[in-house]
């Protein structure tokens, strides 16, 4: 077995197609990634809660933004990972791509849900109601439904190879539709309320708030990657168990 260091990028990509090699590599990666995640989120939470000013308009509620914005960003990033991995799975038949797409879905859905909950909590003092049919919240909700449909499709088709291809088609069609849905919702929203309401993230943001936000976003991204790797490892093990069970049942 050649070391990973003297391979070209393409070869490395293919070398990772070997699940055993992927497992060996990620086993060493998960702990450091987890530690970086913990450090970044701890620093981010400290800066966001104690070492940043309250907003002159929104008061202390602005601190919800430090969770809301990174969650929303990762909710969308998760779908991009899913769609990208699905494309790789369909076109290049990379054996780990569908594992990656399947593992990314629940994580992305969870962040999407978190963005909705924090958005709603933020909306209560700001808008005086728990839910407003705001363009962002609405398109986030539909994104959550897209995630749930994708997860449900995986869950209903029993044979992994078949489920993987069907789910990949769904993820790709979804990725074409997401911008259209988002545009239509924004358009619908501007028709009904021409005056722009409060934006949870304005075009300009003070540096004292930007720093904690960026650190939180980075921490959440590391969190996403760590969870994704852990879930991919679990999925590979699950498939091994399934293969062993089938072999035993047949043998």
């Amino acid at each position, binding site marked *: 077995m050649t070391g990973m260091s003297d391979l070209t990028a393409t070869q490395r990509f293919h070398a990772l197609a070997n699940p055993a090699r992927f497992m060996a590599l990620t086993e060493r990666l998960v702990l450091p990634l987890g530690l970086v995640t913990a450090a970044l989120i701890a620093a981010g939470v400290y800066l966001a809660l104690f070492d940043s000013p309250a907003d002159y308009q929104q008061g202390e509620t602005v601190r919800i933004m430090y969770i809301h914005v990174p969650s929303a960003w990762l909710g969308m990033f998760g779908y991009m990972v899913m769609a990208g991995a699905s494309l790789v799975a369909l076109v290049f038949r990379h054996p780990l791509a569908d594992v990656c797409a399947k593992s990314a879905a629940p994580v992305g859905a969870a962040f999407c849900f978190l963005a909705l909950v924090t958005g709603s909590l933020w909306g209560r003092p700001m808008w005086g109601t728990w839910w407003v049919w705001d363009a962002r919240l609405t398109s986030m909700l539909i994104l959550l439904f897209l995630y749930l449909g994708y997860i449900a499709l995986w869950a209903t088709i029993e044979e992994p190879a078949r489920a993987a*291809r069907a789910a990949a*088609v769904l993820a790709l069609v*979804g990725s074409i*539709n997401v911008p259209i849905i988002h545009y239509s919702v924004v358009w*619908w929203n501007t*028709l009904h309320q021409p005056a722009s309401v409060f934006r949870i993230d304005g075009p300009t943001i003070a540096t004292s708030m930007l720093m904690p936000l960026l650190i939180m976003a980075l921490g959440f991204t590391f969190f996403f990657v760590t969870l994704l790797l852990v879930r991919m490892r679990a999925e590979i093990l699950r498939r091994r168990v399934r293969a062993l069970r089938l072999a035993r049942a047949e043998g």
Partner: protein
Amino acid sequence: MTRAFLALLKRDIALAIRVGGGGGMAVLFFLIVVTVVPLGVGPNLNLLAAIATGILWVALLLSALLTLDRLFQADYEDGTLDLLTMGKLPLELVAAAKAIAHWLTTGLPLVVVSPLLGLLLNLDGHAFPPLILAMLVGTPALSFMGAIGAALTVSIRRGGLLVSLLVLPFYVPVLIFGVVAAGGAEAMPGAGHQGLMLLGAVTLASLVLGPVAAAAALRANLR
């Protein structure tokens, strides 16, 4: 190839008309959904007139969804789909023929009865032409995008609910543009025309994307 395409189209329309359970059932469902709404929100005619366009569109989406899960499933179960896969007609065109047949036997009848239901909801007389036009432009998108969901769930028994879950998010733009194009939702002046154009764009895109994605989904399921 054209002959095979037309033969498939004719067969699917004949099946939908003779066997039943397709278009006729969808129209009946459409009627019942619209009847249930005044029972739910009260018989206030002004309120009904204000929300009529929205109700008709939502009921239209639901009725179209209802018939989707059988789009490919009957042929999958009796093996016809395997034969169609091996035939000369590309699977994309098979999916297109079936989607067109679905539109002719479900979408079109629904559009035809919608003015009658508009009367039940106290819709203004001058609101009918834009409503019918918007529905004519928008309903093909429902069949063509629905074909993707139907193809994805072809091998699943009782996949009806899953089809709804998969397809409804894709119907969101059709609903939004359709309602505005039909002059509903208290839109600003000029928005109706823009809505109609955008609805047309969504339909045209779905005419291309639908068959291609549905064929890919069928191949995934037929392996």
